């Protein structure tokens, strides 16, 4: 091998990478916030009594769970402007694509969690005379978040990783900046390794947190 490892150029381009990282983190956090809230609403809609609400919602969930995130992102980038004649900021489009994907996955997580809530709680809510809104807000939601937490965190980690896909539609996130830097410097090994480590450094603490949560959840249940 006559390739000499030299991290000099990567370190010179560190500002560029950090800028990209900032975009990645912003994309992820915005999508996670939208996904956690939107996922619960969509989950309630998917469990609605009315077919008119339930069926389209379930179709939405299945479509986003059963197609590659890449095609969702590309579709939204090319087709939304053409179909609706709106031209949004690329960052907004990225958030839109990632949060729709996360909403679908979180809705499933919430649904599993809600099904684990004992039926007696709902009966009790009726007996206490709570309105449906109060029941959802004070009885169902807190438990759904607690029971669904391990999966919600796992989903957040995977949306963090899927966010790298927006580089393909030229949003200047960490992945995009890394690709750019590696072509500019002809140093793919150093750049890609460094970028991978940056992703890993952020994902690892969250992954550790999630496995601790899961353990606590298991011991609390047994």
């Amino acid at each position: 091998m006559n390739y000499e490892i030299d991290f000099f150029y990567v370190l010179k381009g560190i500002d560029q990478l950090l800028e990209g990282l900032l975009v990645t983190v912003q994309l992820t956090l915005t999508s996670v916030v939208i996904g956690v809230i939107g996922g619960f609403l969509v989950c309630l809609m998917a469990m609605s009594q009315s077919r008119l609400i339930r069926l389209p919602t379930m179709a939405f969930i299945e479509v986003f769970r059963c197609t590659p995130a890449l095609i969702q992102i590309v579709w939204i980038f090319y087709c939304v402007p053409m179909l609706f004649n709106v031209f949004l900021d690329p960052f907004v489009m990225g958030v839109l694509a990632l949060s729709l994907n996360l909403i679908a996955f979180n809705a499933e997580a919430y649904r599993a969690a809600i099904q684990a809530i004992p039926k007696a709680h709902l009966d009790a809510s009726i007996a206490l005379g709570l309105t449906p809104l109060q029941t959802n807000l004070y009885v169902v939601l807190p438990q759904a978040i607690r029971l669904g937490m391990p999966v919600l965190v796992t989903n957040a980690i995977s949306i963090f990783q899927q966010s790298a896909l927006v580089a393909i539609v030229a949003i200047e996130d960490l992945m995009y900046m890394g690709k750019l830097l590696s072509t500019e410097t002809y140093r793919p090994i150093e750049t890609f390794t460094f970028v991978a480590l940056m992703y890993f450094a952020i994902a690892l603490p969250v992954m550790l947190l999630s496995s601790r949560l899961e353990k606590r959840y298991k011991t609390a249940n047994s």
Partner: protein
Amino acid sequence: MTYTIDFLFLFEYWEVLLEGLMTSLQVTGLCLLLGLALGFLVSLMRVSSNKLIYSVSTVYVEFFRGTPVLIQLFWIFFCLPLILGTEISNFSSAVIALTLYMGAISSETFRASLLSIDKDQSDACVALGLDSLTKIMHVILPQAILRAVPTLLSNTVSLFKESALVSAVGMSDLMYIGQNISSVTAKPVEMLTAVAFIYFIIAFPLTRCVSLLEGKLIHKIAI
């Protein structure tokens, strides 16, 4: 809106799309087999009492679960040839990358199901005087594998979806062909929708199977 939707033109391209789908399925199938074997091996390494074996396998799994598949793919596509000093075709790098990804997520599945087997079963094996090979081959493994099936199936769906990424290194899979046709014909709405639909009709029945298996079959057979 000035864009007129016309799905009919898609029929001219169905053969190419089918070819792309075949490529996607080939990559998925190959990586599924290799990834399952790798994942199984790694899961055994991760329950090993040898510290070195445990650490190596744990670092591998955590690293591949903690970084985007896209960067794993790019790393293998751009960096591995430099390190090895030989060319690697994009098919090989796609297969290597997705196999490593599938191996990492499946090893977690195998591990979870190995750990889910009740300790009593091991005790019972000791009480019955079974040697450890018999215990593993005839008592622990059959149950563990059966319990892992639903999650492995949903891993397969993830793998199939992730296979769309190989278009980023220029492999002509379904995604790549779809994007190409959509830019040549300037009809992205129909083309991309059609491609998404093709992915959907393959992945959706599989996810249905997952919920079916989780709901009934496994409980009936195994637990």
